[in-house]
């Protein structure tokens, strides 16, 4: 049996009525897997559920032969988790905390543990500051510490939730390299709302919004599928509402003071629209926009 993470029919509704996950099914093979979606899409809920921190209402998830939702301890033994928002004990040094966490992960042999901690600190480039209190770390350094602890104990499932938020471009690149290397052997789930993170790194991806999986597949294939159907036009800001009313606009952005609108259509939607090569961003916005129009259409149809 291949080592895969299989999620099927996962649903979660919060006590306040928010439906965070609804019937989510995904199959995730080893390698980098991008989970793309806007804020509030349910990414973190899904991540936390996979990381054993939250209960799902229904559905199953299996990691190889481990039942993720039931056999939490087995998952934890093979899990590396970097939460979206985490802190550290400010007065403790990086080395001490990492060593402590390594013990808790089950690295019992003192010599091995020392080696692992030293290696990880080197790999995340924190070796020089290993004796410094974590309270003085910059955002990037802290994020690197986060990845170091996520790699403790040779995990086969690594979950990183919005890891590059708050990193400068250079650190982001470094971070991507680090992830890419890990992703060669194990399942890495990268949750993000930044499309380029996924297009740069991931062989497979899923787009989710409002708790539902909208699309899943290989980014290249998904992009290819949309090729030739994306049209763009530069308009004045004042025209935007009229254009939106007339065409299925998937995204707008500003360029040199003009507004660029992207429209997906099988044929040229009208005067001034030029075909452009499809990007993963278009795939993303198309998926989200389509989903939202569906959602909006429901009450009208009813």
């Amino acid at each position, binding site marked *: 049996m291949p080592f895969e993470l299989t999620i099927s029919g996962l649903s979660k509704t919060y006590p306040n009525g928010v439906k965070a996950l609804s019937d989510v099914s995904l199959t995730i093979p080893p390698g980098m897997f991008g989970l793309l979606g806007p804020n509030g899409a349910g990414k973190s809920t899904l991540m936390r559920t996979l990381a054993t921190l*939250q209960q799902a209402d229904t559905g199953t998830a299996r990691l190889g032969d481990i039942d993720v939702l039931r056999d939490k301890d087995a998952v934890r033994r093979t899990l590396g988790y970097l939460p979206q928002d985490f802190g550290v004990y400010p007065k403790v040094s990086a080395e001490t905390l990492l060593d402590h966490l390594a013990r808790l992960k*089950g690295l019992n042999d003192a010599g091995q543990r020392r080696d692992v901690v030293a290696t990880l600190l080197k790999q995340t480039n924190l070796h020089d500051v290993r004796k410094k209190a974590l309270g003085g770390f910059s955002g990037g350094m802290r994020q690197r510490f986060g990845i170091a602890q996520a790699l403790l*104990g040779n995990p086969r499932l690594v979950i990183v939730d919005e890891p590059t938020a708050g990193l400068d471009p250079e650190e982001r690149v470094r971070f991507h390299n680090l992830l890419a290397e890990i992703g060669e052997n194990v399942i890495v789930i990268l949750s993000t709302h930044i499309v380029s993170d996924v297009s740069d790194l991931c062989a497979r991806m899923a787009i989710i919004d409002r708790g539902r999986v909208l699309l899943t597949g290989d980014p290249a294939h998904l992009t290819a599928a949309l090729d030739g159907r994306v049209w763009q036009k530069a308009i004045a800001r004042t025209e935007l509402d009229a254009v939106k009313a007339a065409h299925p606009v998937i995204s707008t952005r500003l360029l040199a003071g003009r507004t660029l609108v992207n429209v997906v259509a099988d044929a040229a939607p009208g005067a001034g629209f030029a075909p452009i090569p499809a990007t993963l961003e278009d795939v993303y916005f198309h998926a989200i926009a389509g989903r939202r129009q569906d959602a909006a259409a429901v009450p009208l149809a009813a």
Partner: protein
Amino acid sequence: MRNLVTIAAFEFRTRVRRISTWVYFTIFFALAMLWAAAAGGVIPGAIVSFGSGKVWINSPYAIAQTMAFLGMVALTVIAAIMGRAVQQDFEYRTEHFFFTSPIRKWEYLGGRFAGAIAVLILILSSIAFGAALGLFLPGIDPDRVGPFRLLAYLIPFATIVLPNLVALGGAFFCIAALSRRMLPVYIGSVVLLIGYLAAQGLLRDMENKVLGTMLDPFGVVANSRLTEYWSISERNTRLIPFEGLLLWNRLLWLGIGAAIIGICSHRFTFAYPGTSGKARKAAVEGDASPVTAMATLLTVDPEPASAWRLLPRMVWLNFRETVKNIYFGVIALAGVLFFVTTSTTSGSFFGTTTWPVTYQMLELVSGTFGVFMLVIITFYAGELVWREREHRLDQIHDALPIPTWLPFAAKLGALMLVPVVLQAVLMLSGMGVQTAKGYHNYELGLYVHWLFGIELIDYWLVCVLALTVHSVVNQKYLGHFAMIVYFLVISFAPLLGLEHNLYKYGVTTNITYSDMNGFGPFLPRVRIFEAYWAAAALLLAVAGYLFWVRGTTDDWKGRLALARRRFTPPVAAVTTVGAVAMAALGGFIFWNTNILNTYTTTYDQQKRQADYEKKYKALAADPQPKVTTVKVAVDLYPREQRVRMKGGYGLENRTGKPVDVVHLFFGPGERLRINALEFSAPAALVTDDPRIGLRSYKLAKPMAPGATLDLAFDLEVPTRGFRNSDATTDVVANGSFVNGQTVLPFIGYGERGELATDRDRKKFGLAPKERMRDRDDPVGLAENALAPDADFIAFEATVGTDADQLAIAPGYLQREWTEGGRRYFEYKMDSPILDFFAFQSARYAVTKDRWNDVAIEVWHHPGHEYNIDTMIAATKAGLDYFTAKFGPYQHKQFRIIEFPRYAAFAQSFPNTIPYSEGIGFIARVRPDDPEDIDYPYYVTAHELAHQWWGHQVPGGNVQGETFLVETLAQYSALMVMKQKYGAEKMQRFLRYELDRYLLGRSTEEKKELPLSRVENQPYIHYRKGSLIMYALQDYIGEENLNQAIRAYRDDWAFKGPPYSSASHLLAKIRAVTPPHLQYMIDDFFETITLYDNRALSAKAKALPDGTYEVALQVFAKKRKADELGKETDVPLADWIDIGVLDADGKPLYLEKKKIEQEETTLMLVVPKKPAKAGIDPFNKLIDRRPKDNAIPVEID
């Protein structure tokens, strides 16, 4: 300003919408209401009152007490709300929004401050609402409710609660603003609590009252102090004025609060913490070089769960994190300071301390410090539970492959180490205090046994509870508050009638340690309760584990689902073990407390007394014979805690009527085992009521007047298992002390067994009754008050005990022998005594001495030699004085016998004085210290005097009896003390007596009576008695007074019935009082008289001949009080001391002047430079403000 209001309003609105605000509101509302309900009689078992059952539950005094106390309980709420008001921005990282807004620092701080204060006013107003609405509960006794007065609620709220909010709240607010954390805020509250506890400790010594009052941050002590001498009537009617010590205390703490607020607003900045002022910590320089290649990623596979190996390490890490900071140091230091402060007055009696014996150091620790320890445990439990989440490391931590029980267990372990450290600190402090006081018998084993073997277990039980509560409640501040509610419930449950220890978690019952008897009978019971609660703690820990929040699920539905999943077979097994153990141990306890013994609450006891009266009052009319001889063989079994009394009464019918039925009342009730009970004439048992302890025998042939009858008895009081609250302390392994009256039957109906206070009587539908018969009632005078069922009797006793113990009873040793491994002592009294005797046994050392032909012996615990010489000296001095002034001593021996401190009194039996180890044997009277009062000397002289007052001259069973017995003994002791220590020292002693008289009358349950009509009220017959008799001998002369007393003795010694009454003594005193002072006899003995004397001004100028002329203006007022203390002014024509004193307090001028106006001006010439002058400067008259009688003299 508008910004300030906006911020304040926002703070208030958001707080008011939170559930926690209303939870706090409801709890304080409920507490205040419950208190009113309990004091008002809604709960039948409750024994709550505001000092006296005569004080209305809505009197200004009661409301102020409630507000002050609950205001103090609100400390953590104040800390939480004030601290959070500013700290929340740092925790939620919203500070930048405010710091970058165009608002001023003072607007931000002021707004938050004002908003939080407003919320607290809202919350704490619930106290007033609760106290007021509690009056409308069904079942409130209308007699206990006075008229409604709005001001009675508003004034204490404004003078006590509000200043607390501003001053203490301000301090908390500032600590939070500057530290940006909550931990220091809680440390602050602990320090304040210690201030309060230290203040309480200091109050034991009268000299410290002002200091203690000022030290209390909550105004509780100040409020009590301000009203302590108020009579019942004043407590019911006077609003609490904002003056005196209360005013000063509030000003002091408001000042401290203002200073802290000032510093805070100066130091607080809107800047990012690292950039303000000195950069506190440099940021770590980031390394910008790229990440190293990953080729060398080590693939070390984790091993399977090794939780047990991780546990000690995690415990240690959690513990280190808890104690390795400044705050824990502050707490430990505060603890030491507290200990040292309170140890200065430890065991203080008349302002005189004892030797710092180890158990006293330890009681100091467990008493007040225990509260403090509970607070520390509670709040560290909160810190530990929330630590990961507060550092936002929880998600990483929770996803680690460790079992969920591990962090819970690790935190529990760390928490349990906290009291270990503090106990060790206290142990060292205790030894330090002992060393500093020159005491070197450290008893290390006792320290360790007590602190770590007993008390630590109690604290560990609290640790489990606190951690579980925080785990389950999952809201830090609510968790803290839940723990406070627990502490309150535990502390006040007995007052509400919930007395069984089986349902008070963590209560393992008290221990009274005695040097003589060690932990005595208490330890086995404590161990069983500890085991029982440990089983409960196991169940709690399971609950704490099941509901431990791991991950982000914190809704109840999700947590319940998780808990269900965590309830695996091993957990179920642990639960079963805990439940079975708890049930088994609980059953065992129940078997002991409720089956082997009868479980009685205070309510049950009262009910029994009520039933006694209801069912058997009619028996009082039956003529009964009197006891004429007692011959008894007492067998004490110290280790079994069993006593057996075999012997007989000789009875004689001294009434003029035939005796048909004899009623026997037995004190031990259901504990008593009657092996045999037989009259020398045929008699049939007609009533047998073991619950009450009554047996009635109908004589086949009635006893004719003058006829005699013998009663043979074989009675046993065994100890079976253990009881819920009290323990057998009369027969113990070492130091037995059994009063004969507690075992042997009383003949006839005894009114003393009836319920006394009107409030209790009403509860059971009994009409109010007088406590005693009128002073001259012939029915009462026909019996003596000490033993109404006998007159003077012939007495002999044999006492058997363990072979290594000495046993003693009144009388002279006839014979001593050993038989069957037991030792026997036969005593016989050579002259008639009252029917009042006791038996004692212990491993004694005996110190012997002589006075003329009287053998003096002190039987004491080896090691308690400190004051034996004093006791012997007092005995000799007393024998000198009393035989010379009052008449011969009737015995040839005088023996003082030490007994364990289960009771703190000495008691005079014929030629034998049981004397508690707690009131003199370890007293430390420093001869060179002018402050110390030699109370072993005083107590000995007092008890010796009872051989005359009580044993030679018993009083009739009427009002004023204790005036004859106790006041005369008190007077006799004072004269012996005066001889040795001089008049100056007496003044200090009398100041304590005044204090205790004034305090006593303010908690009177029925009515205060004039001295000659005292109804066994200690504050009158001892305290007021001392003051009055001392003043009287000063006014009419010691010799005169002694003559009168001697004449009285000569008339009444060994006489009766009828017995003497106060009228007889007063007649003798009147006869020796000169006509111009006759008014004093009325003022002193027949009415309650109080003076308000004070010096108004005193100026002096030097005269050419070296003398000084003093111009003195004084004020005097005399008042008479009724039985509840309502006063009326009476005209003054009294002789009062006018005095001018030198710098040493010695009088340069002291004359009695007839004072007839409120204000009097006098010109006096004194030979030397005067220092102070005034009216009644030595406080001979009773005056509620004794200190203003003399003032410093201004010299021109």
